[in-house]
């Protein structure tokens, strides 16, 4: 975490800070400057098409067994077929709704608990060992219990996703709550701020960079959990879909599902990174 940028701007006699003069640029130069970082970012994806091409050639020349690892073109065909039949979108939607519910519940509970631990450190000292004991238990190990408690279906999946998302969010929030700068605590004490004001205007915003980082990790874990839960405990969703395709030995459909899982997860992460920049403009890495 970086602190607040100390920008050196001269300030004599309460004068306006002098704006840093920018040399004038032509429109074209300006356009290039704006576009270059984007192009440079795209360049880092160059390996992906190369790999896909090599893979395709490998299958077509028989060097790779297409039954074990279908060619990208076969996967693409499967994707187009499934998407035209509308089944793919139903499954994608089912998985996204599940992860939204489980992750949303986890976010509310984990953030509240993490901040509460920051407010009541003595209670936290007793409760934290409990959480640290449950944390290392893989969510996969919870699936049998989830089915026993909630049966096959949405509730089991929510529970599994909740568990997966909870710990990264909680751990980060609690860390953030313990990382409030001493000077910020002292200022609040000095003014005699009550608990509510302290939580709203000091503890929560100060922890926010940690919370958002936790949410990003938590959503990623939640997304892997929804697939795991659907493989076993659901009758819809991407996990269920690839499980069904496996039993039919439609390997290209299995892989098409995997591709969609990857792309959706990637998009979720990108959205969270964007949110991170939006929510905490005062703590930008320089």
């Amino acid at each position: 975490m970086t602190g607040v940028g100390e920008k050196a701007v001269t300030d004599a006699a309460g004068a306006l800070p002098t704006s840093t003069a920018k040399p004038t640029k032509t429109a074209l130069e300006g356009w290039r400057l704006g576009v270059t970082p984007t192009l440079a970012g795209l360049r880092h994806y160059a390996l992906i098409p190369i790999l896909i091409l090599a893979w395709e050639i490998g299958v077509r020349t028989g060097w790779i067994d297409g039954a074990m690892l279908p060619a990208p073109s076969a996967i693409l065909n499967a994707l187009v077929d499934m998407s035209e039949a509308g089944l793919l979108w139903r499954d994608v939607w089912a998985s996204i709704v599940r992860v939204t519910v489980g992750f949303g519940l986890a976010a509310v509970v984990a953030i509240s608990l993490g901040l509460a631990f920051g407010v009541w450190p003595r209670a936290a000292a007793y409760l934290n060992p409990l959480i640290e004991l449950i944390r290392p238990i893989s969510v996969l190990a919870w699936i049998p219990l989830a089915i026993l408690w909630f049966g096959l279906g949405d509730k089991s999946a929510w529970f599994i996703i909740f568990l997966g998302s909870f710990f990264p969010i909680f751990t980060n929030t609690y860390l953030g709550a313990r990382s409030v700068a001493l000077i910020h605590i002292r200022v609040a004490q000095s003014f005699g701020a009550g608990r509510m004001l302290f939580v709203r205007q000091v503890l929560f915003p100060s922890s926010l960079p940690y919370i958002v980082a936790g949410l990003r990790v938590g959503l990623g874990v939640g997304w892997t959990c929804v697939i795991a839960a659907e493989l076993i405990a659901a009758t819809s969703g991407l996990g269920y879909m690839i499980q069904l395709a496996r039993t039919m030995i439609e390997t290209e459909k299995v892989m098409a599902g995997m591709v969609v899982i990857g792309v959706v997860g990637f998009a979720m992460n990108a959205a969270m990174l964007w949110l991170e920049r939006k929510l905490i403009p005062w703590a930008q890495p320089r």
Partner: protein
Amino acid sequence: MGDISVLRLSKSFGSEPGSQVLALDDVSIDIPTGQFLCIIGPSGCGKTTLLHAIAGFERPSKGEARIDGRMISGPGPDRIVIFQEYGLYPWLTVAENVEFGLRAKGLNAARRAEIVRHYVNLVRLDGFEDRYPHEISGGMKQRVSIARALAPEPAVVLMDEPFAALDSLTRDVLQEEILRIWSVTGQTFVLITHNVDEAIFLGDRVMVMTARPGRIKAVIDVDIARPRDPAMRTHDPRFLAIKDELAAHLRDEVALAAA
């Protein structure tokens, strides 16, 4: 309101007897309401420790500090600290930072807005209400911190080297503003500084501390009439005489601290 008395206060840090650091040793001083006291001394002599004891952030190991006769046992809104590093909340705007102490006081929104406007104007920050701390200069941040401290009208304002991180031009301007504000509010001000000129220009009295462990070496009255003209720092014979006296006290102590 705002009468501070420090009586035989000592403070040591560290728990094991062998590795304890005695930061303050038997310090006693009375600061009557409305006085401007400056504290000067070599680094590490315990100036911040003394200020924090008055603020209520540090418990004395021996002795006590009182405000208006009441024992100081913790921080409170009657004694607000202005830190060298400002201590602004980076997620709040200038206006919201100034408003913080007023929210803590439980004032309603209309009253808060009115007071914020007054203090933002007082420190000449009008037009910057909606900026965030990372968008303004160091001098402006310190103005925000001053406005925030003054807004709830504390009886005592405690300043820990408030201008040390600023360029000398900004420092001169803020010194005059602090004097102007102090002269109308009648609050008790305690200001720590490294700068002899600053101490004399601002203070009714200047307290010189010894190298660690911090004791009071001398308390010098600055018998120069107010309002004071900034030009006195180079011209006024009384100013220069006090400066010589202070400098002599400090030379000994800084030499000791460096030894």
